[in-house]
Every structure is written in C-alpha cells, then in structure tokens.
C-alpha cells in the first residue's frame, strides 16, 4: 500500500472543469403525519468526490500526458494527489514588482510576483474537529473557500469553509467540512493557493482513451477520496 510520502500527483490539465462535491449517505423515513421529514445520516461527514471534465487534448504532447496520467492512476489502484484547480476563486492575493536581491528589476521594468498567503492553525485541532482556529497572517479566507492540510498519516486532505468568524487580530474561527481526517497541531500551514486531496480513480475504466483523428475529443476522469 502506498503511503502519503510516495503518492504521485495527478497532472493539472489547463482549463479543465472541476466538480468537487462531498458524497453523503443518508436515509429518509418519509413524511410523518406531523409534517416532519426525518433524515438519518450515517456517513460521518462524507467523502470527497471529484469529476475533472473537459480535459482538453489538443496536441500529441497532451495525448502522451493524458496516457501517462492514466497509467499513474493505474485503474484506481493507486492513490493520487488531485488538485482542485479553481484559479478564479483562489483566496490568495499577490504582491508584484518584487526586485532581485540587488534591487534590479527585469528589463521591462517588472519584477517577481509573490503570493501573499500565510495561514496557520492557531491551536491544536483534534481528530474529526469541525471548528478550527486559524491564524491568517497574510491572505484572505472566507466561507466557501477551500484549503488543504498535509498530515503525516493521511497525507493531503481537502476541507471547505462553512462559516468563519473573527476572534481577535489575525485569529479566526472557521467551521469546516468534512471533519478533520487527522489531528493537526498548532502552527501547521494551510495550503489554500493549490488545494488538493489524496484520491483514487473511481472506476478502472474512467480514463479509457481512444486515439482519434484531430481534433482529439475532450477527456474526463472521476475520483473519490482515498484514506490511508
């Protein structure tokens, strides 16, 4: 069995569409005479499922990359780190015009760009916690944003913010889903610029590929969260 340390990344395909949802397991008992509609949930918080669609295959290199990615996925038998590629709503901001160490800029007058993001856990968070205290030194997090945390046993895990409240200064309390997969100690860094999750291919045939004449058809792949 692979471990978090030797889990490979699934390639990020430009302009592919991402659908990330939490799969729940619930049962309804039907409507009662009192007008209630009781629901029983047994999933313990749910499991991430991702559909990466419209993977554009435009060139021979794209074909080769996709076929290599299919082999890395290995029919769903291998864990993969899948990136949630949502650039348009990424919470991090950027500082631009950063010069070289000697103060010089590029010949066109521009400098480097750097992401302004430094968010850490402000306090220890227990296994399956759904409220965590964060220290947002730089950057912004709001409800609906997602982030990832790397832990030694479970590797990269993805969480989404349900609600977030200021406590004092840079400290915020965030309600997250799903519950924390592993306890996290204070000071652990959050990854919100490139959120990702350890997953596996949902079905072994999910990345079947037929090489056609140009233009090549768009491809898709479905993943489900894999826990070590």
């Amino acid at each position, binding site marked *: *069995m692979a471990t978090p340390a030797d889990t490979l990344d699934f390639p990020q395909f430009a302009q592919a569409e991402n659908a990330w949802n939490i*799969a729940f*397991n619930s049962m309804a008992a039907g409507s009662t005479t009192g007008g*209630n*509609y*009781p*629901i*029983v*949930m*047994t*999933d*313990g*918080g*749910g*499991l991430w499922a991702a559909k990466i669609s419209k993977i554009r295959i435009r060139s021979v290199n794209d074909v080769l990359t996709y076929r290599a990615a299919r082999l890395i996925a290995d029919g769903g038998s291998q864990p993969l780190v899948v990136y949630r590629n949502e650039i348009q709503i990424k919470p991090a901001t950027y500082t631009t015009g950063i010069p070289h160490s000697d103060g010089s800029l590029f010949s066109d007058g521009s400098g480097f760009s750097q992401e302004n993001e430094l968010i850490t856990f402000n306090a220890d968070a227990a*296994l*399956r916690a*759904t*409220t965590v205290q964060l220290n947002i030194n730089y950057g912004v997090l709001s409800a609906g944003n997602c982030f990832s945390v790397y832990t030694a046993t*479970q590797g990269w895990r993805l969480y989404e913010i349900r609600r977030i409240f200021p406590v004092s200064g840079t400290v915020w309390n965030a*309600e997250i889903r*799903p*519950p924390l*997969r*592993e306890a996290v100690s204070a000071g652990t860094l959050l990854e919100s610029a490139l959120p990702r999750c350890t997953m596996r291919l949902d*079905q*072994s*045939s999910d990345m079947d590929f037929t090489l056609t004449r140009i233009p090549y058809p768009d491809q898709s792949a479905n993943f489900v*969260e894999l*826990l070590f």
Partner: protein
Amino acid sequence: MIFADTELAALQSDIVRIGAFMRLTTTTSIERLWAGVGQIAPPPDALDTGGGEIYTGTGLLVKIPPFQQLINGAADRVSFVLNATSSDIMALAASQSASIARQPCDFGIALFDQTWQLLGPIHFIRRGYADFVHLSTVGGKQTKNGMAIRTAALSSGSLFTGRRRRGISYLSDYDQRQISSDDSSCERTVMYSTLGQKNWP
C-alpha cells in the same frame, strides 16, 4: 443502555446523525470498525473503559442487518457485509478467519450533533459471537459499473444460536399405548389443532 438528555434530543430531531460501530475480538487483537469515513476516537464505553481507542472508517458501503431481540427464544444469526473491501481487509479476513470463531462481536451505535461531534459513548445494542467470514467476489458483468466487487461477510450469532430445542409436539394415542396399552387418555389428541407458542425459557 442509558442515553443522555442531549442524545435523546438528537434522536428526537428531524435530522439524526448516527454512527454504526462494530468491535470484533480476535484471539490476537481487537478490530474496531465503523460505518463512516475516516478515523474516530469515541469516549469510554461499556467495553473500552479507558477510551481513546481508534475506530477505522470502512466507508459508506456497509450493510448492517436488522437484529432480532432475544425475546421468546428467537436467537438469530446475522451477517455484517462489507462491500468494496480493500486488499488489506480481504487478507485479514482470509487469514484470521480461524482466530475469530466464537469470539465476541459487538455492534453499537453512537449519536452525533449537527457538526458531527460525538454526543456520547458507543451504546452497544447487540453482543454477539463471530462464527465465520465469508469472502466473495461479484463479477464485473454483474455490476453497474463493470468492476468486480469484493465483499467480506462476517456471520455473527448469539449465545443461543445453534442450540437444539425440540419442536412442539403432542403425544399421540399410539405413543401412549406403547407405554401403557390400556391407557386411553391420549385418544383425542388427534383432534387438537396444532398451534402454540413456547416462551423462553
């Protein structure tokens, strides 16, 4: 089994968040599984008085059978079916089948609040004994997505499962006359309708 007020309130709400837990003792270890996602460390309960024991999530696809209460001597055998088992669990099931026979297999529930935090300990509602593990694979052509599905089923009985008890019967006139040839006390038993209920014990 005593539920706290908060647990009773959760049970009475419209959305009940519940976890199903199984604790299987083998001759070498105690396996703790629950029908949710990820690991969970419930507070001390009737069986794990120290607390802090980790239950491993088996995913969403655990089929838990209905239980019959042991009333009027009904002693059923049930099977816990685990679908989509990993190769590790299959290996465990195949190799440890002998070590679980007649070992305690306990099933319990625990209630969560609306933020998926446990409201109390696991309440064990069935205390059974493991019989055997049955492994099977459903072929790809028989499943919806074309993949073969492996399942592991753990058969669990109670202390009374498998006991022998004679069915209800009546002494016939012929039987009685074999004992005492001139005894006619059972000559009308043939007219009785056969219906009865034997209460336990």
